[in-house]
């Protein structure tokens, strides 16, 4: 779109919205948020950039094909579910580190599951929206 205001705003919106999506992802265990909403936010950030500058420039920022994010995220989610099997707990049991990490808080296998969901949602949403934009 040839609008100077929209272009200038979108360059500032992209890093801000990515930061906010990561904040929502990390907060998601005890408060509203989580992998799905965070992934949706990140996908919206890239979409606004693609509306302002065109699909080509956005694909240069993302570097890898968004379709590849889906298997990576699924492997991460299933892998975090498999980890408790090694210590003789049922599948998908939450395992937690004893001490909270600085800035992040408590880290456990649920966080890695959420990161997997985050990657799958980004990949699926961007694949759908990019193919729609290309076909219009």
């Amino acid at each position, binding site marked *: *779109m040839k609008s100077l205001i*929209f272009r200038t705003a979108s360059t500032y919106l992209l890093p801000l*919205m990515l930061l906010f999506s990561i904040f*929502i992802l990390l907060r998601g265990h005890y*408060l*509203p*948020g989580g992998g799905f*909403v965070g992934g949706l*936010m990140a996908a*919206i950030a890239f*979409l*606004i950039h693609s*509306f302002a500058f065109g699909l080509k420039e956005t694909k240069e920022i993302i570097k890898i094909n968004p379709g590849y994010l889906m298997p990576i995220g699924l492997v991460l989610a299933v892998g975090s579910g498999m980890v408790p099997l090694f210590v003789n707990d049922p599948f998908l049991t939450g395992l937690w580190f004893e001490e909270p990490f600085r800035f992040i808080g408590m880290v456990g296998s649920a966080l890695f599951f959420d990161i997997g969901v985050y990657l799958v949602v980004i990949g699926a949403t961007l694949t759908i929206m990019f193919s729609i934009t290309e076909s*219009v």
Partner: protein
Amino acid sequence: MSLQEYFNLIIVPILGISVILVFIRFIKGPSLADRVIALDMLILISICIIAVYSIVYHQSTFLDIAMLFALIAFLSTTAYAFYLEKRERK
């Protein structure tokens, strides 16, 4: 009149009436652009309703939902504008 009564008796009815008026424009709207703006307006009013709800029930986390909703509304409006512009160029 307390703040609670003010919200329940004045603010919420005003928002409700405006939802009905905007919805009439959404159904009637002669052109597609009118409908897009009416949809944007509906989402803005619902953001106001979420804000009132979060004040009345002392739940600050609902404001994040309102913020997310505003972002999605902005995206949908720009997407509609983008596709309308593309269609007219053809």
